[in-house]
């Protein structure tokens, strides 16, 4: 069972949905969405009264919200065939700078929170621009650049704080964003959803998004047709950094403290989610929808294992397995595509 066996009638769809359906068909999102549906169905069947409740689903959504914000930027970066390992550290350093400043100001109101937000975003943006500059202009491989900034950013966060978390988020931030709800939906989830939708529009519907694919698919050709590849790469890494900074303030709102030691695996979890969702680590392929599906798989597994009483440590085993399987399927699909198999050559 591969993605190419999806019925071809999706090509003949109405124009307004044409792009989306086609993309979903051609990506492995469908395949992976199937996996997610099966997982949900299994847990739902095993424990219908606990798992498929509004409370639990809300809980899952809340748990993935911060990762979702990071995954938006990561999707862009990975589509360019890059990687951003620094998101977790940038999140930490942004939240540390924001918390420290808000603490110094001492207020608990919106004005303090707003300044914290702006600071966090600026710090994140700065790290992102640094990453982008080093990747695009200094030509250092993204893996190395972001491994380096991962270390540097985390170190700076620890220097600023002496390694101790700062428990200083204004009450308005925690009450309204962290615990707040709108029509029963956590505010943080709504915020993440807005970021994801805007990110999806930018990726799939704008020039910026199209150039992201172009750079990842064939950078030389992209340069030749006149795309300013260096500038686009800097912008894309800047976007990832900016979103990491934004996630930093969301994290402060949710947990009420900086999470200096708690983000060491965030980057890998987000990368795994994006890749599971069908974004190719080799660039040129991917979708925002897929990344979101990929995010929910670990979260649903985590929640499900707890509920049915299986050791939640199995979650990491399952996610790792799915990750490898997803990339295997992606490879097969690419090999088939370059052979021109499964697609009619008109």
């Amino acid at each position, binding site marked *: 069972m591969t993605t190419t066996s999806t019925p071809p009638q999706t*090509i003949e769809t109405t*124009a307004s949905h*044409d*792009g989306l359906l*086609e993309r979903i068909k*051609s990506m492995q999102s469908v395949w992976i969405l199937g996996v997610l549906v099966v997982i949900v169905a299994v847990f739902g069947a095993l424990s219908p009264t606990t798992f498929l409740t509004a409370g639990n689903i809300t809980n899952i959504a809340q748990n993935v919200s911060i990762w979702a914000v990071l995954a938006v930027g990561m999707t862009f970066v990975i589509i360019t065939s890059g990687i951003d390992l620094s998101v977790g550290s940038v999140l930490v350093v942004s939240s540390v700078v924001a918390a420290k400043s808000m603490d110094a100001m001492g207020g608990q109101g919106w004005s303090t929170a707003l300044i914290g937000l702006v600071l966090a975003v600026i710090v994140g943006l700065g790290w992102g621009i640094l990453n982008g500059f080093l990747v695009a202009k200094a030509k250092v491989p993204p893996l190395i650049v972001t491994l380096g900034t991962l270390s540097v950013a985390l170190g700076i966060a620890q220097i600023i704080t002496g390694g101790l978390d700062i428990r200083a988020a204004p009450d308005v931030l925690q009450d309204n964003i962290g615990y707040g709800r709108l029509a029963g939906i956590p505010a943080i989830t709504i915020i993440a959803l807005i970021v994801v939708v805007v990110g999806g*529009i930018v990726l799939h*519907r*704008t*020039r*910026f998004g*199209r150039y992201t*694919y*172009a750079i*990842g*698919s*064939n950078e*030389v*050709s*992209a340069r*030749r*047709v*006149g*795309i300013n590849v260096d500038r686009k790469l800097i912008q894309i890494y800047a976007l990832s950094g900016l979103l990491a900074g934004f996630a930093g303030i969301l994290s402060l709102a949710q947990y009420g403290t900086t999470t200096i030691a708690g983000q060491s695996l965030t980057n890998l979890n987000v990368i795994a989610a994006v890749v599971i969702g069908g974004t190719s680590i080799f*660039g*040129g*392929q991917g979708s925002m929808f897929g990344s979101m599906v990929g995010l929910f798989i670990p979260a649903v597994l985590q929640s499900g294992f707890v509920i049915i009483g299986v050791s939640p440590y199995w979650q990491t085993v399952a996610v790792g397995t799915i990750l490898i399987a997803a990339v295997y399927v992606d490879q097969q699909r690419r090999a088939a*595509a*370059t052979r*021109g198999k499964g*697609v009619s*050559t*008109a």
Partner: protein
Amino acid sequence: MSTIERLPLSVDHIPEAKRSVYDAEPILSARNLVITFGRVIGLDGVDLDLYRGEVLAVIGDNGAGKSTLIKCLTGAYQQDTGDVFLEGQPVSFKRPQDAREAGIETVYQQLAVIPALDIASNLYLAREERRPGPLGSVLRMLDKKGMKERAGDSVQKLGIQTIQNMGQAVETLSGGQRQAVAVARAAAFGSRVVVLDEPTAALGVKESGMVLDMVKQLRDSGLAVILISHNMPHVWEAADRIHIQRLGGCAGVITPQSHDMGEGVAIMTGATQLAS
């Protein structure tokens, strides 16, 4: 209106049906192009006339100055002396983009196509159109549907039949079809001159035939085409006139009717000289 003399043209060797092409003024002309690289002479006073609706092949041994000539015409190099005229007006291209904006498009051997994107996206790459209204101006959303339709129209207008479904990803296409996408991209959007650098180099027999048909269709749609090739049968099949480069200069312009392949190669290698 023209400030330049036309190069002598041996109309005798051009088929009757094609002669009207040469009544008009040349669209692109080069006069006495000289370029040197240090002590190496790249071009040694080359003249060239290119007409609308013809395929002018440029052949020559390695190092004869084929690519150098083309690069001077398309803005990749700047000649030391000599002039280039587009529709009778002197032009000087500082960068390839200048030539492109003037309507001279080049398709290099290394195709500038993006495998992961579909055909329409490739045709419109770096000249995307936004949706009308606030969706386009505020949200900056692209007019995907419109671009797809117009891409289909322009491909049809060019007479390129090998690519049909504009929504198909380029990575699923064959080599010849990819070439067709690159050529369509170059020929659409108001281009006047299309330069094809070895378009059949990496292709099989059937695919090559397809590409040559496409070259002829481009010509018939009124474009001026320069075809650089090492493959003599392809040149003799597709070209209306053949410009032979030798040792940095032009050894002569022949037609497939005036000389056969053996004679052309002999001129190219210097075994015989064209009586002028």
